[in-house]
């Protein structure tokens, strides 16, 4: 299916460490987007990588995309307490954007 599947389901790391989350999907895509959700709030768009791109940076975020393996990764460097949230990858094919279960990231003080 187009749905992205995030791995791991949950991740706890010490503040200051790097966090890596992975995403796999099964269909061809136009782009892949990553979103963050803080508890009780809506999803917030973080970064978008197009199908013809392999790597993209935005501040402390680094996203990679391997269309041959149908996988993507999100790296958050120098994590902060405020990064505690759920993270979702969203493969986009035409007008459809499908989300998975997300990765729950907990930054320990």
């Amino acid at each position, binding site marked *: 299916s187009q749905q992205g599947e995030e791995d791991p389901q949950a991740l706890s790391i010490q503040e200051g460490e790097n966090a890596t989350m992975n995403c796999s999907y099964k269909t061809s895509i*136009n*782009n892949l987007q990553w979103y963050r959700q803080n508890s*009780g709030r809506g999803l917030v*768009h973080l970064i978008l990588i*197009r199908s013809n791109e392999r790597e993209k940076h935005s501040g402390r975020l680094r996203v990679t995309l391997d269309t041959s393996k149908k996988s993507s990764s999100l790296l958050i460097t120098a994590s902060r307490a405020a990064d505690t949230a759920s993270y979702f990858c969203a493969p986009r094919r035409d007008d*459809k954007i499908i989300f998975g279960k997300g990765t729950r990231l907990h930054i320990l003080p």
Partner: protein
Amino acid sequence: EAGVTQFPSHSVIEKGQTVTLRCDPISGHDNLYWYRRVMGKEIKFLLHFVKESKQDESGMPNNRFLAERTGGTYSTLKVQPAELEDSGVYFCASSQRGLARSYNSPLHFGNGTRLTVT
């Protein structure tokens, strides 16, 4: 610019009752999406409007769910009659739709409506 707003933020109803959720997208956003998240599961796509037209309603669970977007502005999602399994958080999202049908416009989400059916 005002963000996507959803109303109500919470709703508790009994099985068999009717509930109507409302979403006001960002002004000028032709795309409007509804999603639902049941605790611990994926954020499930329900349907997609382009202006007032239903572009894709393949995710709607059954005919107890009715979505409308009269005039291409705000949208409502009615559940009638509600069942226990309808409980969850309903999210609305909107995005721009350019002449080139840009697929690179990000979604802007509301804070969701938490629906509890007892």
